[in-house]
C-alpha cells in the first residue's frame, strides 16, 4: 500500500482501443492522502488509456485504489501528481468550478445505490444535468422522454424513485448519466444493489449502449459482471496489476 509513487512503471500501460484515439488517458497519475502524520498512497503512478467506444472493467480487492481511480476519472478529485486528459483536455489542474463543468459536459455517473433524488420525478431526475447546463425546460423535457425510452422506462416519467423497483431506478440513473451525452460513462458497482437477474438486465443495457459507441468504465469486484467488459484492468496496491483483453 505504501509503495513510493512512480517507483516502477506499471505493466501494460494502455489497453489497445481498436486503433481509435484515446478518449481518456492517465499519465503517471498518483494520489497521496495525508492522514495525520502518515501519507497514504492510494494510487502510485497509474498510466491508462481508454479508447473511444471501449468498455473497461476495473477490478481489484478493496484498498487496491479502484475507487480512487474512479473518483479521479470522474473529476471528483484531483491527482497529486501526473496528468489526466479527457478528449484531449488536461483536467488534472482545474479548479472546483472548472471540474464541475467537465463533469457536467463530459462525464456520466452510475452509482451502486442509484442515487436518484427522492423529491424529483423520474423525468426531473433525468433532466437534472440538462437543468444545470441551462437547457430550456421544454427541450430538456423532450430529451428526458427520449432517454427514458432508450432505457425502457417510457411510461414512468412522472413516477417518484420510491415507486420504482431497484432495476428501474438504476435504469433512470443510466438515463440521467446519458442525458449530457458524455464522453465517458462511469459506473461504480452498477449491479451491487440488485439481484442477479436484474443485474444482468442492467449489464445488457450497458452493453447495448457500448455497442452503440458509448465509452464505459466500470468498477466491479464480481468476475461475471466484469465479463461484460472487453478489457479488465486489475488493480493491486495502487497500481495496475494486469490488463486482460
Amino acid at each position, binding site marked *: 500500500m505504501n509503495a513510493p509513487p512512480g517507483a516502477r512503471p506499471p505493466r501494460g500501460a494502455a489497453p489497445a482501443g481498436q486503433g481509435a484515439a484515446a478518449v481518456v488517458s492517465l499519465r503517471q497519475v498518483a494520489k497521496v492522502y495525508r492522514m495525520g502524520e502518515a501519507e497514504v498512497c492510494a494510487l502510485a503512478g497509474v498510466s491508462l488509456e481508454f479508447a473511444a467506444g471501449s468498455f473497461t472493467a476495473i477490478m481489484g480487492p478493496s484498498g487496491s485504489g479502484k475507487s480512487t481511480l474512479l473518483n479521479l476519472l470522474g473529476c471528483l478529485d484531483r491527482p497529486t501528481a501526473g496528468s489526466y486528459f479527457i478528449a484531449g483536455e488536461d483536467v488534472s489542474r482545474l479548479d472546483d468550478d472548472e471540474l464541475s463543468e467537465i463533469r*457536467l459536459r463530459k462525464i456520466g455517473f452510475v452509482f451502486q445505490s442509484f442515487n436518484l433524488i427522492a423529491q424529483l420525478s423520474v423525468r426531473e431526475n433525468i433532466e437534472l444535468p440538462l437543468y444545470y447546463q441551462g437547457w430550456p425546460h421544454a427541450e430538456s423535457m423532450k430529451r428526458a422522454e427520449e432517454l427514458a425510452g432508450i432505457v425502457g422506462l417510457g411510461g414512468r416519467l412522472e413516477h417518484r424513485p420510491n415507486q420504482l423497483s431497484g432495476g428501474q431506478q438504476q435504469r433512470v440513473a443510466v438515463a440521467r448519466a446519458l442525458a449530457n451525452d458524455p464522453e465517458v460513462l462511469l459506473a461504480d458497482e452498477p449491479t451491487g444493489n440488485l439481484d442477479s437477474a436484474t443485474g444482468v438486465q442492467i449489464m445488457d443495457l450497458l452493453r447495448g449502449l457500448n455497442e452503440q459507441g458509448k465509452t464505459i468504465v466500470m468498477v466491479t469486484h464480481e468476475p461475471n459482471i466484469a465479463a461484460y467488459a472487453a478489457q479488465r484492468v486489475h488493480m493491486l496496491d495502487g497500481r495496475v496489476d494486469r490488463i486482460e483483453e
Partner: protein
Amino acid sequence: MHQSRVARNIRLGIKTLLLHKLRSFLTTLGVVFGVGSVVAMLAVGEGASAEALERIRKLGSDNIILDSVKATEDVQSGSVRSRISIYGLTYDDQDRIGRTFEAVKRTVPVKLVRKEGRLGDRTLEVRVVGTSPDWFDLVRREVIAGRLLGAEDEHGSTNAVVLTEYGARRLLATANSIGQTLRIGSGYFQVVGIVRNEVSSEGVQVPDEEVDAYIPIHVARGMFGDYVVRRSSGSREQEFVELHQIIVQVRSTEEVAATAAGIEAMLARFHKKVDYKVRVPLALLRSAEATKRTFNIVLGSIAGISLLVGGIGIMNIMLASVTERTREIGVRRAIGAKRGQIISQFLIETVVLSSVGGAIGIGVGALIPWLITLFAGMPTVVTAYSIILSAGISLAVGLVFGLYPAVRAANLDPIEALRHE
C-alpha cells in the same frame, strides 16, 4: 426564459419543502410570529402617537401661543386677604408684536371671563372668549348653524355671540336659536352661530373649551372690563388682566422658532415679572415626533428579537436539512452542479420559507391591531412603511440565516457526500 428558470427554481424549492410539510410549517411559523409582531407593534406605536400628533397639529404648526400666567411671587403672598394682582399680557403687547416682527402674519387677542349665560329659562356658566374674527381662522372649527364672527360685529349695534355645540346643547339652543337673545352676565347678545368644539386631553391643550361663548373683544372689554373679582371662602381677590392669551400666526413654519425667541425676548423686556408663557406647538410637534420615533424603535426592536428567533429557527432547520441531504448534494455535485448552484438552491428554499412566513406574518400583523382597536379601543395605524419594512426584513432573514447552511452544503466534498449514509 431567464424568468421561467427562476420560477422553476422556486417551484422546485417549494416541492422540496413540501416533502416535510410539518417541519416547513413550523419553521415558517417562527417567521410568521416574528413579522406579525413587528407589524403589530409598529401599528400600536403609530396609533398611540398619531392621535397626539393630530391634536398638536390642530393647534397649528405655524402658531405661537402666549398665555398670561400669575407670576410666582404673587401666588406666594396669599396672606393678604384682599389685594389686586396685576399681571399678564397687555393690549400693547399684542400691538407691539404685530408691528415689530415682519414674520408675524396676524395676532389674535383672547380675553377670558367666566359668566353665567341664560337662554330662555336655562342657565349655564360659560367661558366668554373675547376675541377678533381672526380666531376662527386659526382655530378652525366646523360651523353647525348660522355664521362665525365677522367684521360687521366689530361695529354693529347688536352684540353678536357664537356658541360651541356643547354649550348650545346644554342651553337647549338649536339651529332655530340663531337670532335669539343670550344673556351673559348683565349684557344681552344675539346668537349668530354655533360651531363644533374640540376637547383638550392628554397634555395637549386646545384653545377652545366646551362651553365657550365667542364675542368681539371690544365688546368683552367694554362690558366686562379688565378686572376680575374672585371670591372664595370669604376672601376676595381682584385680578387685573388685559389679555389672557395672544395667538400669533407666523408666515411660515421655518420662522416659528426665531419669532418665538424674539417675542420671548421682547416680553422679557417689557414685563417686570415673568407673567406670561410662550408655547410653540411646532416644538411640541417635533418633540412628540421624536418620542414617537423612540417608541417605534423600542417596540420594533422587541418585535425584532422574535423575528431573530424565527430566523435562527430557519437556520437550524436548514442545517438539519443539509445534513440530511448530504447524499443529494453529492449527487448534484457529481452531475456537475457548481458550488454557486448548490448555494442558490438552498438559499431559494430558505427565502421561500421566510417569504411565505413574512407574507402570512404581515396578514397576522395587520389583523392583530384591528382586534386591539376592536376590543381594547386603542387606536392603531398599520402604515405602508411597516409592511414594506417587514417584507424586506423577512426576505433578509431568509438570505442571512440561509447563507451559512447553503455555503456549508456547497463546501461538502462531493466524494465524502456521495459516501454519506
